[in-house]
């Protein structure tokens, strides 16, 4: 058994309170870098997923939708929302120069009343005209979406009998979508005839969501694809000028506000992580400087007994590495315990799309955090280790005699 394996452990056990404080400090290093990295990556993933799921260049909604809560919050936070306009606006939008394709969507929010299994946002689309929902529905369901069929988001629990009821309309779940990290994960998708049937049933149950629009000729939003050679911003402007009572937003602009929010949150996370690292590294450096000073005589004794200068450095570095590795393991585990179970809460608190990276990536980040924190801890002792190795053993023993 060699000294480097025995003495650092014994020294650490000798001062349990100090060791615990150093381990805790190292844990903060790993916790901040692991938790921060996973959060920033999850936010970026969420934005990518949001971008790909939106699938349109322009989104047009009735003007009153702006006051009822934005379209973005429905998509991002899964807040059920309903707004309607007459289908004639859809036709007017289609007539605007530069609109290559337009797909109407119909929104209905289910309630927590007995007529509905769960309160969610139900999105109706027309399979004939849709180009935004079906591309990613096909990833999970290749069949035809018949009347009474629904596809549910990843966050919804699928009952054993595979059916959900909305406004007393029983629906068969044909597929469950992959996770997006957005409000779409709690949404339900169906075709137009099913959602209109639900709407009629809601009316008969006493839910009068539509007062001035005929349900059979109503739409909630129009997803627009711009023809090649046209500028989406310009087409958006044309729609807003020529189609009254409609608010069109370029997807890029919608995304830029989300991206802006993401940048701010990411910036704050990075700053916090940097602050934790600078503080922890400084405190660890001071702690190891004090430890090496306190044990200067012991190091001198080891030198007298035959320890080389390098060996003395290695002893202090081994002690720092044990402390920082233990702390890093605790910190990374604590970060995993926070980030995994509380992902939803974090997402809700930040009001941004949040999609956890794949497990392999998270494990790789965990391993990198562990390594980085261990190395950082050991490096914080490097200067003290070098000083210990340069001390004059004879002088130290005489001073401390």
């Amino acid at each position, binding site marked *: 058994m060699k000294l480097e394996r025995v*003495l650092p452990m014994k020294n650490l056990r000798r001062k349990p309170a100090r060791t615990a404080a150093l381990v805790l400090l190292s844990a903060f290093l790993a916790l901040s870098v692991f938790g921060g990295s996973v959060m920033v990556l999850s936010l970026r993933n969420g934005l990518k997923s949001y971008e790909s799921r939106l699938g349109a260049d322009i989104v047009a909604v009735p003007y009153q939708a702006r006051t009822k809560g934005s379209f973005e919050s429905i998509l991002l936070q899964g807040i059920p929302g309903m707004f309607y306009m007459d289908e004639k606006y859809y036709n007017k939008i289609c007539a605007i120069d530069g609109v290559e394709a337009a797909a109407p969507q119909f929104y209905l929010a289910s309630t927590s009343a007995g007529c509905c299994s769960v309160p969610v946002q139900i999105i109706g689309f027309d399979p004939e005209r849709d180009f935004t929902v079906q591309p990613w529905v096909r990833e999970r369901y290749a069949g035809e979406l018949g009347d009474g069929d629904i596809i549910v988001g990843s966050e919804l629990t699928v009952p054993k009998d595979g059916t959900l009821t909305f406004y007393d309309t029983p629906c068969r779940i044909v597929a469950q979508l992959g996770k997006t990290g957005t409000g779409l994960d709690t949404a339900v998708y169906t075709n137009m005839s099913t959602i209109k049937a639900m709407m009629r049933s809601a009316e008969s149950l006493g839910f009068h969501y539509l007062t001035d629009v005929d349900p059979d000729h109503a739409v909630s939003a129009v997803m627009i694809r711009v023809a090649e050679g046209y500028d989406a911003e310009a087409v958006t402007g044309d729609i807003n000028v020529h189609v009254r009572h409609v608010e069109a937003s370029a997807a890029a602009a919608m995304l830029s506000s989300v991206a802006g929010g993401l940048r701010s949150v990411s910036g704050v996370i990075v700053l916090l992580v940097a602050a934790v690292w600078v503080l922890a590294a400084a405190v660890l450096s001071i702690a190891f400087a004090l430890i090496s000073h306190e044990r200067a005589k012991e190091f001198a004794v*080891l030198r007298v*007994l035959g*320890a*080389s200068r390098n060996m003395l450095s290695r002893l202090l570095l081994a002690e720092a590495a044990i402390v920082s590795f233990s702390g890093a393991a605790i910190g990374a585990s604590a970060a995993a315990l926070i980030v995994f179970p509380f992902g939803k809460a974090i997402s809700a608190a930040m009001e941004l799309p949040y999609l956890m990276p794949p497990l392999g990536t998270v494990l790789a980040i965990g391993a990198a955090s562990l390594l980085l924190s261990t190395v950082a801890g050991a490096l914080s002792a490097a200067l003290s280790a070098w000083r210990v190795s340069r001390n004059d053993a004879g002088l130290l*023993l005489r001073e*401390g005699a």
Partner: protein
Amino acid sequence: MVLRAENVSRRFLRQRKGSNVFYAVRGATLALAPGSLTELTGRSGSGKSTLLNLLAGLLEPTEGKVFLDGTDLYALEDGPRSRLRNQTLGVIPQGQTALGALTVLENVLLPGLLYGLPCPRERGEELLDQVGIAPLKNACPTELSGGELRRLAIARALALRPGILLADEPTGDLDDENTRTVLSLLRRSADEGLAVLLVTHEREAAGYADRHYRMDGGVLTED
């Protein structure tokens, strides 16, 4: 095994007083032969400990050389020189020098642990028995008296059966009884074939030594 210093000097830079340079040891020549106990005396600050550190390979001389059986100690890099010190020299430093994180027995076995050399428990226990502190083998150093700690340092210095023993004031601040115990141990070690250098202020030590040297202002003279 012979440790020999040839005309070694060690000068230091001094920031205060008139001269910037002073010699802690000046042109010292000394040989430690097996089976003999050499006593080195002198006032505080006369250079005794500096000479011991030069002999132990801990402090490079500014002039002269130190040979261990023909090997120029300071021609070696720090690593090999440290290993040579570990395996051939037993050093008893000044003061109380036990490592607080280890038990008494672990402290005695410490030199073997440095390079993973075989130093069985039995050897440690035998040495503790020889210095009279065997019952304290599992105690912490903080539980030991000054005299017991000195005896621990002697046992530790002998753990790897060195050829040479360098003792720096091993009886400092000990009572008469402990002083006699320590001096007897060193004498016995010399009688068993070790070359022993005893740096001391102790008048009584003269009676145990074969040769007597004196340091004065860094200059070594044989009495």
